């Protein structure tokens, strides 16, 4: 599903005549199979988010190759990435990233609107998802009128609306309390089982690591361990 080949990334900091290269990822190799839940762990600053951002196409790798769904995305142009994202990837963020001026309904609908889906079809799909995440009563609420857990459910619904085979999540439980976190993780597991959605989840959390099929550990930009969770 996802293949990372000798991937390296470095940031450049400082002014033009005093530019410094800051290597963040060094020679990462890994493969993620269809239907897997993979958690990425590591200390702060170890390069977890950078790895996920590369997979999302938000930044371009300085070296190495990246394949998603058998497609080489390494050299995708911005517009190609946009199309690819809206077809194959769903995103969940730590801070939800909902559009504050849109209602829960509109936020979930947004990817379909951008894809040019008909209003009728949009309503059918959004209603179904709202029901599924248990927010039918909150459809007209704006993000500021929802709790953190509810907001995260809206953002999960938004990620699911285009039926992506892969969902990338950067610390999805980071802003939630324990109880809500467990709820969300249950939901993720359910989606994974029922719909064979592949999850890549960055986390600091032991709970998350527990539902994962595999845990990848990064240290200082290097992949130090990649092991199957026996406990599962």
């Amino acid at each position, binding site marked *: 599903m996802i293949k990372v080949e000798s991937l390296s990334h470095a940031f450049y900091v400082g002014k033009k005549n005093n530019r410094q290269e800051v290597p963040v990822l060094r020679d990462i190799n890994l493969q993620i199979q269809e239907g897997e839940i993979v958690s990425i762990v590591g200390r702060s600053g170890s390069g977890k988010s950078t790895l996920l951002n590369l997979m*999302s196409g938000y930044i371009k790798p300085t070296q190495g190759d990246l394949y998603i769904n058998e497609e080489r995305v390494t050299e995708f142009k911005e517009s190609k990435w946009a199309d690819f994202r809206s077809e194959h990837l769903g995103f969940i963020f730590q801070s939800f*990233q909902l559009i504050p001026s849109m209602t829960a309904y509109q936020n979930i609908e947004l990817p379909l609107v951008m894809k*040019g889906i008909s209003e009728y079809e949009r309503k059918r799909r959004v209603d179904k998802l709202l029901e599924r995440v248990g927010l039918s009563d909150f459809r007209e609420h704006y993000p500021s009128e929802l709790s953190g857990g509810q907001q995260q459910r809206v953002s999960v619904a938004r990620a699911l609306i285009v039926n992506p085979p892969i969902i990338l999540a950067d610390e999805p439980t980071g802003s939630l309390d324990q109880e809500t976190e467990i709820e969300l993780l249950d939901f993720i597991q359910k989606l994974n089982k029922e719909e064979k959605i592949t999850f890549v989840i960055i986390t600091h959390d032991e709970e998350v690591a527990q539902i994962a099929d595999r845990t990848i550990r990064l240290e200082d930009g290097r992949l130090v361990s990649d092991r199957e969770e026996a406990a599962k």
Partner: protein
Amino acid sequence: MRWKDRLNFIRQNMKKNRSRVFMTVLATSIGCAFLIVLASVGFGAQRYIVNDLMQDRAITEVTIYGKQTSEDSESPEITKEDIETFKGMENVKAVSHKMRVQNEPVVTNGEYSGSSTVSVVDFESEEKAGLNLSSGRMPEAENEVIIGHHLAQFMYKESDETAEAEVFNEEGLVKEEYQMDEDLIDKTVNIELEQYKNGEWERASFPVKVVGVMEEPARDWQKSNDVYISEKVLEDIEAFTGTKYGAVIHPDMKENEVESLQRNGEERIYNDVQVIAGDMEKVESISQHLKDEGYHIYSVTEELDQVNIVFAVVKIGLIIVGTIALLIASIGIYNTMSMAVTERTQDIGIMKAIGGHPRMIRSIFLMESGYIGLMGALVGVAVAYIISAGINMLLPIVIQQVFDQSLDKVIQLSYIPPYLALICVALSIGVAMLSGLKPAKKATKIDVLSALRRDV
């Protein structure tokens, strides 16, 4: 993204900052109204002048003065042969051709007499060329004539009591109190001529019957004292004068001059020739054709062309000045759009992060600025029509106040042709989208990660 959704999206975005959008639309509409009103004065003046030209003269008329020939010796006058050529040309409706009697004929009826212009015409051609009678009928017999509308007004009773100077007014016309107030129709009038013969002046009278009176000439100041006779009457006159076209011989003329007037057997020449085109559009091609054939001509279209060129320049100038107002408004649009992009950076970042296409984002912002341009233009057009109506209403009042003169005709100083309004709408949308181009580009360039981090 569907057009309807884009429009919805834009509307929602604009609602977020109503007052700013309102001010920008206001500025744009002021620019538009200014542009239209300014140009409308150019259009109004042009329409006024062109209408004036068209009204006064037969727009389909091409007057022919003469002919340019390769040999200088050959006569440059228009002969029967030329007339036939004109008649045979494409799109020619009629050819009016007249021969003037080269004398100073006086028309008399009873005690009244007056000067006149006597010409031989082909009545059939004149009728086709648009000659209309205000009363009577066209001549049928050879001694029947039609007369100009004002001929009677040129006739007065000659008497010893009144001096000539007293009879005429400053326009050279007979004063009303001396005018003949009878109709000449169905009356016999005499055409009287003088000729110097055998050492003394002889006088002859040619009685003709008036059967019709022509319509008033189109222009107010034109007075017609014409008498249109048949060729037979001319021949009678020539028999008396012994010269072509009844030309006068003066006592002090030299022998050869007299001879040249007498020379006989020559072709008739016409000194007043007009080719009438089937319709206005054909005038130009006929004029060109005639010019190519070497005729000296004049048609109103030539004048119209020049007038139109002058006005085209004036209008373009006014539109450019007006466009400057629109450009100033476009600075406002640029500002508004830049701020909108900055304000919505996070939203745009989120949209890009979950699969929004840069092209779609650009088109949304372009549409939004175009929408502002459109609304500004619509309001501006409406305002311009109101201002234009106001100008046209107030102008006569102002003229009356300032010059103490009332206008006999209604002048529409400001005229907005529909296409001017359309041009302005298009211009406004165009300028608005142009000024939205850079902000829209900026929107597509927004970096997803910085936007999501909310540190912009």
